[in-house]
């Protein structure tokens, strides 16, 4: 009895210690946010849209120096977007960052942007700083690339033609070289890639597959996409097409044990297992019957 009491006291002490360790670890998890533990990230990117407008996007977030997974977006920070004009900056507008730390400004296609001698447009994003946060500034240089998508059908062959070009000072097309791009069709959740290649002499063409599913009318959206190019940034172009096929609602195959949809190995493995097990059961029952007969 004395030993038992002693044991209980001992284990109670261990449990208390465990509890304290757990409480302490919980406190660590709930400790306050320390700005000095974080590194500020201020990224500016640009994307040319299908209507030739341009999106300028700033991602403003703090990343924990010790734990890269721990990222905190900076919200409600006023970001000012500028376009360069010779040596000065022209204010385009100001947008506050959203809950994800993102501020987006769309430069309309009609807005004339200064192009320097090398053919680059320069955009700048600035954050003026606040009591706790330092000033931030980032610039991005990009050439204004145009993509033209044309779809043509000749002799039942459906072909997609793409032209990629810059415009010189008098508006003449200057075709570009060696640019990788991806073609995709729009879906409910994301775009489905159907072709990828490299633009040569400013042109790219391919034969459109004839089994792309469309909507009820056979329509789908075809996208051409250049992803984060060194000179042209991200460029997107889209064209609507009636080349899709619409599958009538298929009558689903009835659920059944023996179907072509299942691989043959599945049947083999399952059959071996089941025959092995049930044969054993039958053997046991037969032997039981024998035991009964012996005892009669």
């Amino acid at each position: 009895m004395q030993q038992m009491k002693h044991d209980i006291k001992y284990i109670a002490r261990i449990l208390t210690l465990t509890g304290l360790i757990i409480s302490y670890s919980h406190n660590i998890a709930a400790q306050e946010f320390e700005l000095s533990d974080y590194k500020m990230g201020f990224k500016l990117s640009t994307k040319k849209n299908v209507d030739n407008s341009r999106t300028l996007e700033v991602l403003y977030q703090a990343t924990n120096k010790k734990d890269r997974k721990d990222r905190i977006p900076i919200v409600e920070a006023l970001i000012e977007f500028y376009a360069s004009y010779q040596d000065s900056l022209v204010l385009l507008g100001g947008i506050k960052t959203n809950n994800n730390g993102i501020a987006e400004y769309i430069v309309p296609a009609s807005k004339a942007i200064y192009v320097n001698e090398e053919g680059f447009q320069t955009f700048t994003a600035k954050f003026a700083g606040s009591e706790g946060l330092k000033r931030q500034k980032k610039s991005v240089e990009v050439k204004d690339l145009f993509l033209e998508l044309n779809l043509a059908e000749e002799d039942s062959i459906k072909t997609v033609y793409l032209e990629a070009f810059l415009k010189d000072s008098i508006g003449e097309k200057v075709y570009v070289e060696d640019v990788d791009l991806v073609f995709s069709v729009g879906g409910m959740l994301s775009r489905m890639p159907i072709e990828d290649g490299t633009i040569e002499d400013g042109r790219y063409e391919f034969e459109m597959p004839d089994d792309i599913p469309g909507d009820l009318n056979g329509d789908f959206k075809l996208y051409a996409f250049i992803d984060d190019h060194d000179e042209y940034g991200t460029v997107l172009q889209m064209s609507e097409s009636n080349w899709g096929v619409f599958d009538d609602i298929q009558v689903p195959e009835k659920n059944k044990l023996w179907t072509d949809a299942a691989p043959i190995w599945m049947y083999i493995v399952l059959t071996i297992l089941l025959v092995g097990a049930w044969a054993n059961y039958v053997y046991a029952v037969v032997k039981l019957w024998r035991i009964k007969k012996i005892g009669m």
Partner: protein
Amino acid sequence: MSEIVKKRVIDKKFVTILESTPNSSKIWIASLVLIILVGLYAFILQVLHGHEVTGMRDNVVWGVYIINFIFFVGISYSGAFISGILHFFDTPWKNAVSRIVEIITVLSLIIGPIFILLCIGRLDRLHYLFLYPRIQSPITWDIIAIMTDLVGCFIYLYLTFIPDFAILRDDEKLDVAPWRKKVYRFLAMNYQDTPEQKAILKKITRTMSAMIIAMAIVAYTVLAWIFSLTLQPGWNSSIFAPYFIIAGLYSGVGVIIICMFAVRKFFKLDLYIRKVHFIGAGVILLVLAMLYGYFTFSEYFPRWFSHKKNDVQLLDTLFSTYFWEFILANYIGVLVPVMILFFKRFRTINFITFAAVIAVLGLWLNRYLIVIPTLETPYLPIQDTRPEFIHYTATWIEWALSAAGIASFCLFFTLLVRFVPIIPVSELVESAQKSKIKVDQKRK
């Protein structure tokens, strides 16, 4: 032959348990029946009103029912596994625990699948599972595996019961109701313990014990695949099947220890279920606790390290909303049993049982954390919906039915203990005969 039969009588200790039911036992049985009746009322409400009366909604389509299902089936498979090992290797101290393990196995295997039926919203369409099965579906595999395992377990357990049924049939001094004698006679299948019968029974029991070990592994693996073959965060894991098997064994050994403690205490079987048996089971529990802890760590650490958005989101949920449950399941549920069982001074019957209780509770919570938080953090969250449609809280209906399941387990265990000897009498007789032969040989 008749000489052998005459010697095969039941020990007085077991005769008392089989013949009379004391008042304390009657009160215990009545309390269990009451809990089951409340569960029955809850079940009727669920059938009448549908799953609306439960906490299960669009996101969390599985609740405590599936957790109870996994838990009970896990106990059953581990029982079958351990029982198979005990018989196959003819373990020296199997007599003390084998019958307890066998009863636990068969009861869990009956009660477990009842919980999966409670998960089905339209019970009237239950037969569709058999009319329109898809062989590619893990649910179909599970139905096949559970049914095969259920039949196998019943045959195997029946084989282990036969010699005792024969003794119960032949013991004329045993004062039980005539219908019980008839049942014993029927179940004994003319078994007279002749050398030929003995040899056949031993052979098929041994074959079936090997079969049952394999079946337990296959069936619980298939159950784990129901989760791991989906892409859900927290489920899509290559180690889920062995993790399930280790966790099942861990909880199974825990339940066996608790039952050993209860049987020893209430039926005063200190002579048969001794400290050495608890220490043996405790050491097995210790090894399993460490393995379970290792698998748990291996399961969560790569998820944390992977930086995958949904995995990180799941871990955030586990360490915020389910913080205490996570700590209880995966820290307390492992470390406390390990601490108790690791030190020799704590290896007393009470402490080993306490460790087993902690292990069993921790395992139930572990199942809860596998199922619920994952369903609460889906890949495609439903937008602009009510919080109660996203977050799961079990209703009293679910708790009542869960309690009824546990009560049914306890009730049938109590009734079975009063129907067959909790220690295999035939094995005791055989051991005694073997010892006698050895003594005789020494004398010669």
